[in-house]
């Protein structure tokens, strides 16, 4: 019984395992038809495989791609050190930043003292609660405090606290709406504005 193309191809590729490999070899020794067919398949393989892209042609592309990767990926990755980092700022940007800084500084010096005094008076009344970020501002706490706080509109106090980064929650205590016995807590969140 003769060999089919698939077995011959497998044998040609050196993929035939042992009991069959020897059998095929023996068969090819005496069967002219199979031997001829095998030579045809080998020739086909030689022609197809031989029509490959050649190493010389590949080399140019190999160098070019490597240069691209070196330049755009490998070298860039080296610049990770903080001190070695390239801090380049464009001149207009630098000037703008400097001008802004001076502007803020001058503004603070001119307008600062008055406002700052006000602020300083407010700060001692802001008592951080023992548990984290909750802060209570009580208008009834001490005579001086009430006086100070009274001199500020509520809106300004809220603005001040908001600027300081406090999430302000307002509660109205001890005021009972007319006609309603229940106390309704009024909540306001200036931060949401």
């Amino acid at each position, binding site marked *: 019984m003769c060999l089919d*193309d*698939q077995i011959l*191809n*497998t044998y040609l*590729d*050196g*993929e035939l395992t042992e009991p069959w490999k020897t059998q095929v070899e023996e068969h090819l020794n005496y069967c002219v038809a199979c031997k001829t067919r095998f030579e*045809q*398949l080998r*020739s*086909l*393989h*030689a*022609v*197809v*495989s*031989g*029509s*490959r*892209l*050649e*190493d*010389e*042609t*590949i080399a140019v*592309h*190999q160098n*070019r*791609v*490597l240069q*691209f*990767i070196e330049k755009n*990926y*490998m070298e860039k*990755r080296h610049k990770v050190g903080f001190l070695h980092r390239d801090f380049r700022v464009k001149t207009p940007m630098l000037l703008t930043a400097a001008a802004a800084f001076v502007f803020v500084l001058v503004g603070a010096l001119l307008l600062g003292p008055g406002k700052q005094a006000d602020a300083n008076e407010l700060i001692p009344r802001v008592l951080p609660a023992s548990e984290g970020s909750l802060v209570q501002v009580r208008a009834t706490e001490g005579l001086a405090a009430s006086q100070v706080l009274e001199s500020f509109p509520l809106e300004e106090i809220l603005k001040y606290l908001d600027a300081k980064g406090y999430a302000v929650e307002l509660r109205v205590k001890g005021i009972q709406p007319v006609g309603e016995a229940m106390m309704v807590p009024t909540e306001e969140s200036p931060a949401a504005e």
Partner: protein
Amino acid sequence: MEIKSSENESFRHVYEEVFPVVMRVAYHVTYNMDVSEDICQEAFIRFYEKNIDFRSVDEAKYWLIRVTKNLAINVMKRKSREQAMVEKIKKAPKVPMRNGEDALIDSETRTLVREAVEKLPEKLKAVLVLKEYADLNYKQIAGILRISESNVKVRVHRARKIMESMLDREEMHVS
């Protein structure tokens, strides 16, 4: 040798060894040098960027071949959709051939082989290209394509059968 794809030394080692194979795979799927170069570049950039550990150079090679093959096949799929790409590939200059005695296959035969490979169905083409141009065995091809070895065997056989029927053997010249 263990390979860390993002380490420059590992990368260069793999690149040196694997680039020709990967380029051949890309080329014999697309038959366009510029497109193949782009595909290889993309594959190696992915390799470098992904920072994968491979147990050996071969493992890295199989990974790169798989990525390249997929990129190349995607290009061909897109090619069939985009007319501009078709034109670009059709107008692609032929790869310069070596002249002289050591040229085993003449350019006419190469053209015939190219036309035959181009006509192969995608699945058979992938197997044939990996077999004939990447010099891989059935097991390696099976691993890369994630199919069984017997499936590879059958596809190699079918691909060659089609190739044979498309190639006029009288016009093939092997010196």
